[in-house]
């Protein structure tokens, strides 16, 4: 596994210039260890999405430092040339909606990422099937996304986020569309996967059902983060 956890120091993001400039992030500090699941909570407009886009190497921060394990990936500019490969190989994404590719079956939805990275098809599909076993969706491996329930789709989306064994997973409101039982099930799975694969997981959420499950929570308000110890009850 390349890198361990994620570290962010003084991350800033400014949109626009001059009088119209808006500081979406004013100095974010975060550190998430391998195997840890932390919550990121904040009201609308607080900078959650901007932070997620910076962490996901989708937009470039204005200042600060980001590191995956010991490797600095941003420090006054990107330190890695191929951001596309960075996103593909070292950052996993789980979205509010599963956003599975509707014309690929469940296995290929997950296996597509390693295939894009050059892994042979058979090996990529084996990785996907191994994850399906862990996520208890192996019996739906040949199904199309439209044939799955919401919970099953979200588990497949988690498998897609994990399949390249990234050191970090960014989960954007992964339980927003699920009921309490399924939402807690998703968090349980994320915790298991974080532990099993030594992955650092950041869960952006508004969902009060799952907030008590985090051991550590980052609050973000007006572009600044505040760390807080969570109740850390976990999922029974």
């Amino acid at each position, binding site marked *: 596994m390349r890198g361990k956890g994620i570290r962010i120091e003084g991350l800033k993001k400014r949109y626009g210039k001059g009088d119209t400039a808006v500081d979406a992030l004013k100095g974010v500090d975060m550190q998430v260890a391998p195997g840890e699941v932390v919550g990121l909570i904040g009201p609308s407009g607080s900078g959650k999405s901007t932070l997620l886009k910076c962490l996901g190497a*989708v937009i470039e921060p204005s200042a600060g430092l980001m590191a995956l394990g010991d490797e600095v990936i941003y420090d006054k500019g990107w330190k890695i040339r191929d951001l596309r490969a960075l996103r593909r190989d070292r950052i996993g994404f789980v979205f509010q909606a599963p956003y599975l*590719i509707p014309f690929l079956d469940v296995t290929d939805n997950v296996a597509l990422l390693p295939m894009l990275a050059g892994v042979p098809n058979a090996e990529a599909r084996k990785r996907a099937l191994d994850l399906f076993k862990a996520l208890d969706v192996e019996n739906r491996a040949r199904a199309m996304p439209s044939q799955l329930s919401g919970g099953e789709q979200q588990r497949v989306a988690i498998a897609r986020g994990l399949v390249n064994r990234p050191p970090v997973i960014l989960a954007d409101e992964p339980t927003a569309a699920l009921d309490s039982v399924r939402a807690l099930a998703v968090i349980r799975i994320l915790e298991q996967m974080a532990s099993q694969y030594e992955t650092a997981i950041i869960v952006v959420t508004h969902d009060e059902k799952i907030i008590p499950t985090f051991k550590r929570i980052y609050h973000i308000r007006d572009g600044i983060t505040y760390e807080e110890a969570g109740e850390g009850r976990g999922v029974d």
Partner: protein
Amino acid sequence: MISLAGRDILHSWGKFVFTGVGLGLLIGVTLVMAGVYRGMVDDAKALLDNSGADLWVVQKDTLGPYAESSSLNDDIYRGILAMSGVAQAANVSYLTMQVRRGDSDVRAMVVGIAPGEAGRPGWPPYLIAGRQITRSHYEAVADIATGFKLGERLQIRRNYYTVVGLTRRMVSSGGDPMVFIPLKDAQAAQFLKDNDAILQQRRRSAENPALNRPGVPGLLDAVIASQSVNPYVNAVLVKIKPGYAPDEVAQSIRQWKRLTAYTLPQMEEILIGKLIATAAKQIGMFLVILALVSATIVAFIIYTLTMDKIREIAVLKLLGTKNRTIAAMIMQQAVALGLIGFAVGKITATFTAPLFPKYVLLMPGDTALGLFGVVVICVLASIIAIRAALKVDPAEAIGG
């Protein structure tokens, strides 16, 4: 690596197939239009090839007998026959008209052929049923496209003719099927008037003091006799002896007979370069318009299909899919759509071509060119959708 385009097509095959069928009908029309042009050219070549002539001798300074009217005395062929290098020379007359068939009529080119036998210039070179004309009057050989049957009687002007033979691919440059009749009958048909008109003409001649002089007995009868016959033909078809150059014989005829003579390449130039040139340009314009319409439709369809997948494209980009993979997916879908359309279009054109009233010739070269054109159009049409897809911000996959 799996084929994203292939999977998408398989997933929504109904949409692709129905769109492809619609596009295919348009491509089919395009192929048929090209076939119509080829058919016109082939008709012109068939007219020349089937005439069995090496030279066409026509009225001086005319482009006859197909592109312009031409009139020659019917005894000129004797002088031509005596010229060096000439193997055969035969009078021929052409008249495009409606040939009566019972209560209906058929558009046809009536060809008057000089007495003789098969192999003589102007005669149908082969028959598919019946026999050649053997009598001097009232027999006909018809192209099968006229719809006439052996033994059927057809009416040209006032006279009836019995169909004694059927031939095939004997058409005018306009695609009208030919009906062959004896030359004398054809000459009469060109100028034959009804009885009332003949009586009126004779009365006028009798009342004309210049033609009816009391001191010149027999003058009026001679004038009326000359008015009752047509000594003209449209052309003399010449076959050249082996070893003689057509250009040299033609030049000799031009020089000594003060007539215009065309060789086969010159006649092809007149028919294809002049007679059907305007129609060819017309069809060419249609082809350009149809190609533009096809390109627009493919571009619109591919753009719409791509816009339907904008969220998936954003996710793919966020997950690290290369731009060229996404571009290839869109382009492959456009080409696949074009290939489905082309297959449908080719089948449509093949099965509908025989139903057209005029000859539609679908040539393999045109089909290959059409396939190439469709692929090029589809590739170009997909560029708009590719540009739109590449502009999609991967951040769109992340909320907020």
